[in-house]
């Protein structure tokens, strides 16, 4: 049963127009987006300003390429294919810069340098495990931020 008449009956047309123009259930100021603490907001702002739909697109593209690339990276290490490991870490490295994770990009850079100087892939085992942990954490953050952007942009 509709109860609109209970309210509308007592509202004059001018006030009704104002209600329509400034709906009560939507604030006029945009609701602030709360970033994950691991995201460098300043870095994101320098790239996309406050364009949240664009950030959603960037995070989506990053996720779709990063997931298969990380698998190739890990497979290459398992196969002890050092040139491929180096090439893959070089490729994925800037992805993290585009999603506000410059510290992860820096860790990738350090690992890439280690690859360039390594003669045996076994030398890289310890830093590789540390890097993988960091990359897996980063992937979770990117994915969760992507869903937050999506929800925020739909609101």
């Amino acid at each position, binding site marked *: 049963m509709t109860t609109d008449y209970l309210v509308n009956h007592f509202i004059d047309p001018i006030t009704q127009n104002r209600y329509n123009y400034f709906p009560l259930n939507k604030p006029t100021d945009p609701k602030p987006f709360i970033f994950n603490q691991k995201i460098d907001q300043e870095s994101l702002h320098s790239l996309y300003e406050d364009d949240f739909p*664009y950030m959603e697109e960037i995070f989506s593209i990053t996720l779709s390429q990063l997931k298969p690339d990380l698998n190739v990276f890990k497979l290459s290490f398992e196969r002890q294919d050092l040139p491929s490991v180096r090439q893959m870490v070089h490729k994925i490295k800037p992805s993290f810069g585009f999603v506000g994770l410059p510290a992860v990009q820096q860790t990738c850079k350090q690992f890439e340098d280690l690859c360039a100087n390594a003669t045996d892939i076994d030398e890289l085992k310890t830093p590789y495990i540390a890097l993988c942990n960091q990359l897996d954490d980063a992937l979770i953050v990117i994915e969760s931020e992507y869903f937050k952007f999506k929800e925020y942009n739909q609101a």
Partner: protein
Amino acid sequence: MSLSCVIVEDLQVAAEYTRKCCEKSGLLEVKGHFTNVADALTFLNANTVDLLFLDVEMPGATGFELLDQLGYTPKVILTTSKAEYAYDAFEYSVIDFLKKPFTYQRFSEALQKAVAKDNATAVAEATADDHIFIKSDGKLVRLNNDDILYIESMGDYVKFVTAEKKYITHNTIKALEEKVNKSSFMKVHRSYIVNLTKIDDIRENDLFIKGTEIPISKAHKQDVLKRLNII
């Protein structure tokens, strides 16, 4: 003014970001995006562009190898995440070096350099169109227009024929047609551009330059005859 450009980048997010920067500038028309050197080369040898946004490390071959194999020299802005390439960038006379991720402000500065260089090149071409430089045997060779007899297609390569020597370079007749001085040179067949001042005689559908028979296609014959000083 609008510059045509191509993005050669294997990282999708970087390519998309660069494309958006190009769009935002209002100065660039993106003709394509390629994720590897082989595909980019095929496109670039068939289509001349003004500016390349070029990644360095890609699967198969590097961005520098692309520049080595390209038959002409577009303006290049390197986009890479490895600062160590700055020295090579300098060696290849690239316009600027953008370290990923770069801000739009930084992109804009690089673009301004490309625009400035484009203006300078236009002036240089207008004042020095009596010669061309071609890449041959790993060096840039100066050929005076007056020394070139004709240019012949060899698939992905072309042969510049002078009275003294033949030079083979990676290029296409289609791309060269736009580059050569149109007052001296003319395309007479899909495989030949000739120096009009060097034609000795014409017999039906062939012309002769220093004893070499060159076919004239039906599509070009009327234009060729119009350009000759026939009394």
